[in-house]
């Protein structure tokens, strides 16, 4: 029922009970598109968004005042752009920002590409191909999704030290190259998005298995793959515990660890620490402005199936 019949039309065509129900439903504003939004709804949502934005605003605020003014009400009204610029400039140097940013992009980017590649390949196989032991292998992936990452921290640390990767970016990247969630996600998506007819048509036309994957499965997987890439990218960018452990004294290599070093080390100057936080968060917030829509769509698409 996409369009509603008008009340007079309904009165002429439908039995009285249906007419009464429809009238009541319309009075209570329950339509096929959901409740009507009133001022209360907007007020609540505006308040939630205020809370979402406020910590970021406050970080910029603290970064733009002197240390004397950062407590109490002093942080409001005494800030200046010149001070903000000065603090950002110092934090920029202390963080070694350009290098840390490029490293963070490298880590997040490599992990995103790798996760998408391995997951799409395996997900296609699980969703559309028939082979012995499929159910068991897939069940194994689901089971590992529930295992906490902390459990692996100690042996991974030992492994990375043995491989001579301690303190290096590779040590941050390697554990993030595959995720069980990625395989689960791609399998779920391809199961319903890729019709068997397409695969069969390609096979009849003489495509080998890998050509079928390349020309049929990959294009169909694109929407889910780009969402998976985004989520992996954000997860890697915002992670702290593992890089903090394995980078050791190379503690300015990625943004989150660099920012925490600013907070934990020589400085107790909060205006500078906040400048570091602003510089760390700003690139991803900027990215969010452009891809936030896809993130929202991805979360909502995953939820219905999950």
């Amino acid at each position: 029922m996409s369009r509603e019949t008008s009340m007079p039309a309904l009165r002429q065509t439908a039995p009285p009970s249906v007419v009464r129900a429809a009238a009541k439903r319309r009075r209570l504003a329950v339509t096929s598109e959901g409740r009507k939004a009133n001022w209360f709804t907007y007020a609540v949502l505006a308040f939630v968004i205020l809370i979402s934005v406020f910590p970021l605003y406050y970080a910029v605020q603290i970064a733009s005042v002197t240390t004397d003014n950062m407590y109490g009400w002093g942080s409001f009204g005494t800030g200046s752009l010149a001070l903000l610029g000065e603090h950002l400039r110092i934090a920029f140097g202390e963080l070694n920002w350009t290098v840390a940013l490029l490293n963070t992009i490298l880590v997040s980017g490599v992990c995103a590409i790798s996760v998408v590649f391995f997951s799409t390949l395996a997900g296609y196989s699980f969703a559309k191909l028939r082979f012995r032991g499929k159910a068991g292998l897939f069940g194994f992936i689901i089971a590992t999704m529930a295992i906490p990452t902390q459990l692996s921290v100690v042996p991974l640390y030992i492994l990375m030290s043995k491989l001579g990767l301690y303190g290096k970016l590779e040590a941050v990247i390697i554990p993030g190259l595959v995720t069980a969630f990625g395989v689960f996600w791609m399998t779920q998506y391809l199961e319903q998005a890729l019709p068997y007819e397409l695969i069969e048509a390609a096979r009849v036309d003489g495509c080998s298995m890998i050509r079928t994957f390349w020309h049929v499965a990959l294009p169909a997987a694109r929407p889910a793959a780009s969402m998976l890439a985004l989520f992996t990218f954000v997860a890697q960018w915002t992670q702290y515990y593992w890089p903090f452990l394995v980078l050791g004294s190379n503690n300015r290599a990625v943004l989150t660890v660099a920012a925490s070093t600013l907070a934990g080390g020589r400085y107790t100057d909060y205006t500078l620490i906040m400048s570091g936080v602003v510089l760390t968060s700003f690139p991803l917030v900027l990215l969010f402005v452009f891809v936030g829509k896809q993130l929202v769509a991805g979360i909502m698409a995953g939820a219905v199936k999950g």
Partner: protein
Amino acid sequence: MSKATGLPWRVRVSKFDVKASPYLYVAPFYVMFAVVGLFPLLYTAYIATRKWNSVGGDKGLAVCGATCGDGGSTPSLLGNFAWVLNQPDFWTALGNTVSIFLLSSVPQIILALFIAYMLDANLRAKTFWRMGVLLPYVIAPMAAGIIFNQVFSDNMGLINTVLTSVNIPAIPWHANRLASHVAVASIVNFRWMGYNALVLLAAMQAIPRDLYEASVVDGAGPVRQFFSITIPQLRATLIFVIITSTIGGLQVFDEPQMFSISPSYGGSNNQFLTVTQLLWKTGFVSTNQSNMGRAAAIAWLLFLIIIAFVLLNFYLTRKISGDGPSKPRRRARKEVAS
């Protein structure tokens, strides 16, 4: 009928292609996963039974040490576990972790449900509201931790400034144990509330609208609708959200770590020290005679605790949401069937 040897070369290649390809496509994932997922998992179990120093490496079977009394010097498989369980710090950290977890997940899910309900209305500029709610998701938890550390500063931080200006005494957000848990939990809530709201929103929109229309005919108001239709219909998604927030919540590290800017991570009296922070202190902080075997034991204990909580949650959510109006209906259906 079709003997492989009698077939032309091309057909045999093609047959092999069909048979082997599925395995070839899943193999790269499993090879990678064996290295970074499975091996560490099994290796943790081994390390947890060993006396393993971060400098000296493997030094034989674990010993509990002086904390276990007279028998402490005897090596045993469970030596590290005995040591951990004898640490008052472990029990403090466990209490803190559970407290922070409860303070973050319970209000978070209730608020997320409420926000999702608000977002479910027929809004103008839907995408704007949804994106706005999701913004905290791209803020790194450690960055949020640093910001909230300042907002919750005991000493004229923003919240205490507001409180004192309306004649409410300032709250020692760092010094007081429970207050610090509330503060740390609010950092977790800040990041995940909007995310979970969107997950729940998607599930809400999948509820058939005619259920609501039918309930209107039956005379249900919005409140009744929410509790008798929305909540029961969201059951599967709620269980999913609760379980993921359990797994994540009990491993909380970044937020409490950044909530204090001093070498005394977790607070001066360990008032907001979590289990993962203790794991880090035990295994990786050199001034503390870092002991990886004991850290691995903590990891395994945490794993067991998480499993216990997941099972408990599963049981409770089944019980609670299963008591809704769906139960009599199911029974009725069974009677009809038999």
